[in-house]
């Protein structure tokens, strides 16, 4: 399906209308980040790299540029994906997770602490991680509370192991330092900023 003869043949288009589509993707992500647990859909047709979900490609096209180094998990970092993101975003693709402003991962990382959590004085330097998973659903077993959530809400991310939530909860002690997460599956996304408290209802995993 994919020719590897030359860069030109590998390169598929980015946004067909960058101004309005960047705005649209940003607004979906803003809604997601402002209302953790709400599932937003990127309603766009983009022929991005095969290894990336549509929502991951769209967020990257909308927000990543030469000011924001991008980490790609090894499984996603095909030559086609690297060429596409370098060309359309003008970004540097880096292999040291610590320096990344954005990261795109296939599943949750073994060790969250390999990413930048910012500093006490500049907590906004903490990374934004786009994590590709299979399934996003609304009916638990995760209970979310925190800013952006009226009372509490339920979320189901069955591909995410319980150990990841434990590690994330430990990291939250260092607030305002932290990492902001966007889980994506196909065109869908759900955000968990560093302020969102996640509890796993026992026995329901």
């Amino acid at each position: 399906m994919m020719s590897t003869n030359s860069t030109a043949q590998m390169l598929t288009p980015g946004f067909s209308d960058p101004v309005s589509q960047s705005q649209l993707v940003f607004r979906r992500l803003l809604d997601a980040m402002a209302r953790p647990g709400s599932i937003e859909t990127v309603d766009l047709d983009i022929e991005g790299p095969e290894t990336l979900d549509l929502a991951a490609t769209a967020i990257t096209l909308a927000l990543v540029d030469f000011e924001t180094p991008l980490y790609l998990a090894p499984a996603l970092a095909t030559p086609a994906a690297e060429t596409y993101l370098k060309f359309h975003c003008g970004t540097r693709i880096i292999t040291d997770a610590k320096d990344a402003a954005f990261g795109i991962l296939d599943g949750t990382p073994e060790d969250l602490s390999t990413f930048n959590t910012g500093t006490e004085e500049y907590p906004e330097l903490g990374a934004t991680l786009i994590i590709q998973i299979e399934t996003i659903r609304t009916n638990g077993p995760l209970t979310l509370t925190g800013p952006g959530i009226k009372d509490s809400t339920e979320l189901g991310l069955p591909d995410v192991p319980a150990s990841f939530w434990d590690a994330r909860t430990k990291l939250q002690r260092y607030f305002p330092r932290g990492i902001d997460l966007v889980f994506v599956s196909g065109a869908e996304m759900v955000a968990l900023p560093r302020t969102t408290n996640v509890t796993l209802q026992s026995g329901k995993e």
Partner: protein
Amino acid sequence: MSMTQEAQPWQAPEHDKPVEQVEGYNFAYLDEQTKRMIRRAILKGVAIPGYQVPFGSREMPLPYGWGTGGMQVTAAVIGEDDTLKVIDQGADDTTNAVNIRRFFAKTAGVATTEKTSDASLIQTRHRIPEKPLTDDQILIYQVPIPEPLRWVEPRETETRKMHALEEYGVMHVSLYESIARFGRITTAYNYPVQVNGRYIMAPSPIPKFDNPKMHQMAALQLFGAGREKRIYAVPPYTDVKSLDFEDHPFTIQSWEENCALCGADDSYLDEVITDDAGGKMYVCSDSDYCAERREAGHVGDQGEPQTPAQKGAAE
């Protein structure tokens, strides 16, 4: 409507009509790289409620003091499907509000409105609408001075440390000194708040009457300071507490009068001089709220009942 006319706040002016987007402008004026930078700052602001995110402010075609920070946030957020409302001191028809509304009608081609309930984005200077905002709305504040600790500590390096370490004692001492000297906290505008139990934040120069509306608001609140290049945010349904003391709890302004035009007893009132002899009356600062109440048949002491014919003419 002329640009210089300061219409009386209770006269609902003709609704702005959508203007064709002007050729040669970038959509919403800013270039795409600048918008990306501002958008990233907004997202981090939402993720760290009440924290001031520095950003590279760009020149806007209006002088500072006209709300360039709020305009840059609006320009980064706004899309073709949005309906924009702009208020200044609660009114939609001041020169500042009219100019900003026209700016976005021209550069983004968006629809504008004066009705709070019809707006998806509301840019504001100095007020929060009286009508409760909804999940589908975003409120964008123009902020002149984003640093709430500035008046107790002028150095940016120090205030940044104080925020980082949550060292807010000096702020409380300063407020308490106001009580010791005047018997109360004298700050009536830009009254400091604490967001989600963590960052102390300047709510911009809204009257403290509006502070309680920020608490657990359904709408997302974004703040832009152009000169000092800061963006901050309060996500929906987030605790926003006005600083106070057990023996001196936070209170809001209240009036003995009701609105002279619509009779409201729950809205923020402006004193309006009515004649050379010093006659005055109190009217709602939120002109849309007042107009909507009058359209619904509410009449104040000095208001005239609206007949169905007048209602039709007003629309």
